[in-house]
């Protein structure tokens, strides 16, 4: 089942990237996608971590929220750089996700919003560096943590 989904994703990507729709090219595409799926299956890469399909139903909602956050914090980072009011702080937060993929998604989301960077992680504790106490408070309210846990949908 998962191999079929991976095959369809790869084939869609091939069709979108190539732009040539003759029978030869498409059959070559199908052949190479099937070969990739075979190699991935042999290497036991097709599991929840390699292909996190449990994200998909709530992904769009989460991405819209994330883009909004990125835009907001881009604006405040620009303000901080222009004002020069830099008071960096380092602290730890706890991640409440179950799977490793969701933890990585949370850490990546923290890093992706300018103003906060995940510098280290140990099991479920992240060390976060923030440019300002405002950015730090944004992470410490655990709003993003709750959103990613909701995106994971395992609790």
């Amino acid at each position, binding site marked *: 089942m998962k191999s079929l989904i991976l095959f369809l994703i790869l084939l869609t990507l091939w069709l*979108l*990237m190539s*732009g040539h729709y003759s029978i030869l090219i498409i059959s070559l595409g199908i052949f190479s996608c099937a070969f990739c799926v075979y190699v991935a299956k042999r290497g036991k890469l097709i599991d929840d971590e390699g292909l996190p399909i449990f994200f998909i139903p709530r992904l769009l909602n989460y991405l819209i929220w994330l883009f909004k956050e*990125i*835009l907001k914090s*881009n604006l405040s*980072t*620009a303000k901080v*750089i*222009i004002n*020069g009011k*830099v*008071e*960096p*702080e*380092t*602290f*730890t937060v706890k991640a409440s996700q179950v799977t490793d993929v969701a933890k990585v998604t949370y*850490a*990546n*989301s923290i*890093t*992706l919003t*300018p*103003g*906060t*960077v*995940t*510098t*280290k992680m*140990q099991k479920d*504790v992240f*060390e976060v*560096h923030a*440019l300002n106490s405002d950015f*730090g408070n944004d992470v410490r309210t655990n709003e993003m943590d709750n959103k990613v846990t909701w995106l994971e949908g395992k609790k």
Partner: protein
Amino acid sequence: MELILDIFTGICFFIGSLSIIIGACGLIKLPDVFSRIHAAGMIDTGGTAFFILGMVFQTGWSLITVKLILIGVFIFFTSPVTSHVTANLARQKNILPVGKKIGKIL
């Protein structure tokens, strides 16, 4: 119609280049490695996102739009990884960030 699209492209390019210039200033101005990563992250997200949006207005609906969006998606997935690797390497070399530390850090 084309004029409106051109104006939108211009606005997007303006915002994108503004955020890249501010990010570049931040790279020079901010005090240490960890703070400078924030400025680089601003270039990665704000700059590229607005530039790609501006180019999407020019191409309209075609395969090139899909490719542009894919470029954006891949930058979106890879840029936090590079930021994290830079920060993590600095921490492994025992460079401590300036500023206050709240609680016990790892």
